[in-house]
């Protein structure tokens, strides 16, 4: 049960109401005492679960700030943060952590916390954090009520016309708000090369829009003067952390996740500089996925010292480079589909207004970019979109039914009217192929991975599946075996034979360690039971 305590005296005209969550009675009491000194009305809860009940019964809008300890029995402060952002993104959240727990701080900020406090908490620290948080809540609520006051900075492309750039860039951008959030930019460099920026600024108010536009201007100016990207990032981080303050002299508490991709057409190399942005990928025409990095460091604006992750890749002929913001991953996760499927759907439905309805209830901006790295490509696969592109370790063999359901959801999300017999044929082939790859190619081991790619071609109206494992393949003559098995009713080894029969085309490579299957979308559309 939550308990409400009143401020001691001098209540301000607009009383600040704070929900404090901590399982430790002494800490809770101390914090409440400090908050009373700041004229707050305090409601306390002893666990994340209790806080959830309080927020549901009293309404999130009745609070101006939520302050929670990270470590609690049952659900953690991070669980509570994610839950609260799901039901009311405007309510500011302050996380309490132990001293020096940088990773917890990073996780909390990444998940939407406004600020953090380290134990032991001093009254002065609370005052500053509380003021920022309450201001943030009230500002976000004002904007939510009157979104038309803001301007559509988020959806503007502030660079030159995309058509004039040396590589084809396709962008799908579905902002949730009129300002701030995700943005991209692209520049043709003096040497003929190209720079693409994709970023996500925290917040959706005019301040975020200002930061977005300012950053793009700074990059353009500094790049024109041949400043290396790391220096540009470092300079902007300094602005965010040390120079820009509110009218009261407080830090802005605004952050920027950004990824810069420098495409060098002469040396056929890509340089990727990443600060807190989801890892981008180069994808080969056969679906091989080459992640540009492993850990993207922190966004700009979090800490005084900043480090970016730098990755260099060779450009592979006819490949594409994909970048997307965390809003895409979050929405795909919520819908239990592959992020590739969501990206594919967005690209395919660009011309149709219904695609906006598809993600109308997304809680964050969604942006995905696809860059054609070899503009002179004449590959027939250049317009293909990927529905699935994943690597699975051998130990996932036991999850095959769960994976099957995930593949089913992802494919029907992109192709909702796919013929059910074709879908059954396709899914069965994927299942058979992946069972073989995980069981024999990876030997069921957690250290071995198999890859699965399913691509759809809107030009040929066909689907292409590539399954690859690290094994040596086999010398099994499945076609001869199938003849024998069918005649003599041999109850084994029919998997490859089924795949060959159900697909419109099958090609084995590397002695069968890689299999490519093709399906024509129209091939099953007339099949009925009468054909039996």
């Amino acid at each position: 049960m939550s308990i409400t305590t009143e401020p001691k005296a001098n209540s301000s005209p607009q009383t600040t109401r704070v929900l404090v969550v901590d399982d430790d009675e002494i800490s809770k009491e101390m914090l409440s005492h400090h908050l009373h000194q700041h004229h707050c009305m305090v409601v306390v809860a002893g666990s994340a679960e209790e806080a959830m009940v309080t927020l549901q019964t009293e309404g999130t809008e009745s609070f101006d700030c939520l302050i929670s300890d990270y470590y609690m029995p049952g659900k953690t402060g991070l669980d509570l943060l994610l839950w609260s952002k799901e039901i009311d993104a405007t309510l500011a959240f302050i996380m309490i952590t132990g001293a020096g727990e940088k990773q917890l701080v990073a996780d909390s900020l990444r998940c939407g916390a406004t600020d953090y406090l380290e134990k032991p908490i001093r009254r002065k620290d609370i005052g500053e954090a509380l003021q920022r948080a309450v201001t943030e809540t009230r500002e976000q609520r004002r904007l939510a009520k009157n979104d038309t006051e803001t301007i559509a900075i988020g959806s503007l492309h502030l660079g030159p016309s995309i058509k004039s750039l040396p590589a084809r860039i396709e962008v799908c951008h579905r902002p949730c708000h009129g300002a701030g959030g995700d943005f991209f930019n692209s520049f043709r460099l003096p040497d003929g090369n190209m720079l693409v920026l994709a970023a996500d600024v925290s917040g959706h108010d005019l301040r975020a829009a200002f930061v977005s536009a300012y950053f793009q201007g700074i990059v353009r100016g500094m790049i024109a003067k041949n400043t290396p990207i790391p220096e540009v990032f470092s300079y902007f981080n300094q602005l965010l952390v040390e120079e820009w303050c509110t009218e009261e002299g407080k830090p802005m508490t605004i952050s920027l996740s950004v990824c810069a991709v420098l495409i060098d057409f002469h040396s056929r190399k890509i340089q990727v500089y990443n600060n807190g942005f989801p890892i981008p990928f180069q994808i080969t025409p056969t679906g091989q996925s080459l992640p540009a990095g492993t850990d993207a460091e922190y966004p700009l604006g979090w800490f005084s010292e900043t480090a970016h992750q730098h990755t260099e890749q060779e450009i592979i002929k006819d490949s594409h480079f994909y970048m997307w913001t965390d809003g895409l991953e979050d929405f795909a996760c919520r819908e239990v589909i592959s992020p590739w499927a969501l990206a594919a759907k967005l690209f395919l439905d660009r011309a149709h207004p219904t695609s906006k309805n598809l993600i109308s209830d997304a809680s964050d901006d969604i942006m995905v970019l696809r860059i054609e790295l070899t503009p002179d490509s004449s590959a027939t696969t250049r317009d293909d979109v990927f529905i699935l592109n994943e690597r699975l370790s051998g130990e996932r063999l036991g999850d095959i039914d769960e994976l099957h359901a995930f593949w089913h959801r992802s494919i029907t999300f992109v192709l909702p009217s796919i013929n059910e017999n074709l879908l059954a044929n396709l899914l069965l082939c994927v299942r058979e192929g992946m069972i073989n790859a995980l069981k024999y190619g990876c030997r069921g081991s957690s250290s071995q991975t198999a890859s699965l790619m399913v691509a759809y071609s809107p030009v040929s109206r066909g689907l292409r599946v590539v399954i690859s494992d690290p094994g040596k393949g086999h010398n099994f003559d499945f076609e001869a075996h199938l003849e024998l098995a069918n005649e003599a009713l041999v109850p084994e080894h029919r998997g490859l034979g089924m795949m060959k029969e159900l697909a419109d085309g099958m090609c084995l490579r590397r002695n069968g360690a890689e299999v490519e299957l093709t399906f024509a979308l129209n091939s099953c559309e007339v099949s009925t039971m009468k054909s039996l």
Partner: protein
Amino acid sequence: MKPLLGLENNRVKLAFPGDILSTNVETLREQIFSTLNSTQYTNLACDAFEFDFTKAQMIDSAGLNLVVSVLRQVKKKATRISALVASAHVGRILRFTRLDRQMEIIAFEQSVPA
């Protein structure tokens, strides 16, 4: 759900409760063969056997191997074997493995309400 194996219209009927896949095939095998090997079945004076696949939308290679194993066993006794199939996909699986030469495949079409 257990596969239903019973006597209906003077024929033994094996009704699969759903898809026949690698993840449920061993359970199904155990249940089916425990009945097929029982004296209750072996003493039954009935030479007709029907596979009911109407609830199966998908049969993978492990599932197909089970069907073949059951068929081999059933053929020792039954002379008239049929398979009731609702899904075109399942029908295709049985056809390409030439099981249509071993048993009569009957298309099951659900009645449409007027």
